[in-house]
């Protein structure tokens, strides 16, 4: 078992976990300047080389959380 803290120097791993949470998680409120779904898609497109899914391992039931703009 290994531990990676958010502030850890192991940047490559921590960055995925971090982006998954600060962009994919958090409360979504409409701001005056805010990212539209299209903008978030753009971010995801630009990160696609780094982040992708092995979604077929995930169950098809409700406890699979694909909400909140997570990377798929």
């Amino acid at each position, binding site marked *: 078992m290994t531990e990676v803290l958010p502030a850890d120097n192991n940047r490559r791993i921590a960055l995925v976990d971090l982006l998954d949470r600060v962009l994919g998680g958090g409360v979504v409120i409409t*701001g005056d300047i805010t*990212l539209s779904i299209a903008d978030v898609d753009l971010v995801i497109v630009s990160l696609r080389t780094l*982040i992708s899914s092995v979604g077929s391992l995930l169950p098809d039931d409700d406890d699979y*959380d694909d909400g909140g703009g997570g990377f798929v």
Partner: protein
Amino acid sequence: MSIDGVGIWLYAVTAAESAGGVVDGLSGVAGEKIRLVAGDGLAAIVGTVPLREFGEEPLRRHLEDLDWLATKARAHDAVISAVARSAAVVPVTMATVYLDDERVRAVLAARHREFLAALDRVTGRDELGVKAYADPSTLESRDQPFQQKSGERRSGTAYLMKRKRELSSRERAYRVAAAEAERLHAALLKHAVDGKRKPASDPSLSGRDSWTVLNGTYLVAKSAEGDFRKAVAGLQETTAGIELEITGPWPPYSFAGDVMNE
């Protein structure tokens, strides 16, 4: 919107009564001093940022720059994590910007009830991530060991037979991994208030050859965090061919939105 203007970057929302002193000495995504905007019994944790960098157009442009994104994501998280150490917080998705404090106060008033419900859900709790990496070859051999039969090596048919066995062996390993992930997730949920499985990240990013079979995240009572970590260590000891990794504690990014992102 003036290019020389400023915007108000929103980091998180907390209860006004617990907000005293929580932002002292903190700086944010633009190096700005973090401050509070209070209203309706709530306090928004904000910073004033220049629109030439954080306005709509620049923001969109910057978000495609991974270095910029990484730096700002870490700064956004650092503020929220610092506040979370002393008060319950509802983290706000990165890059939510308002034109002035009045607009922030209006949001606190309009979503007052939902913020209180979200705070109630996360108070006294942290988020812990648990990932499980499976080594396919270990799972294959564990499932059913295949021996190379002597004399098969030379012919094309033999090659194809061997290839077919390897593929079905891999498929079985995949099924074993999926079942293990389900078992681990269920075991971890017993030590958590709630938990979710997120899409797994690509193996190339973790620098591992192994499969990420579980990318779970769990809402855990602060008082039960030790038990949760012990449970992870216990599962690690009894699970062959799978490596577990804990991240966090994180502010409740994956759970605060449950009552608000409707």
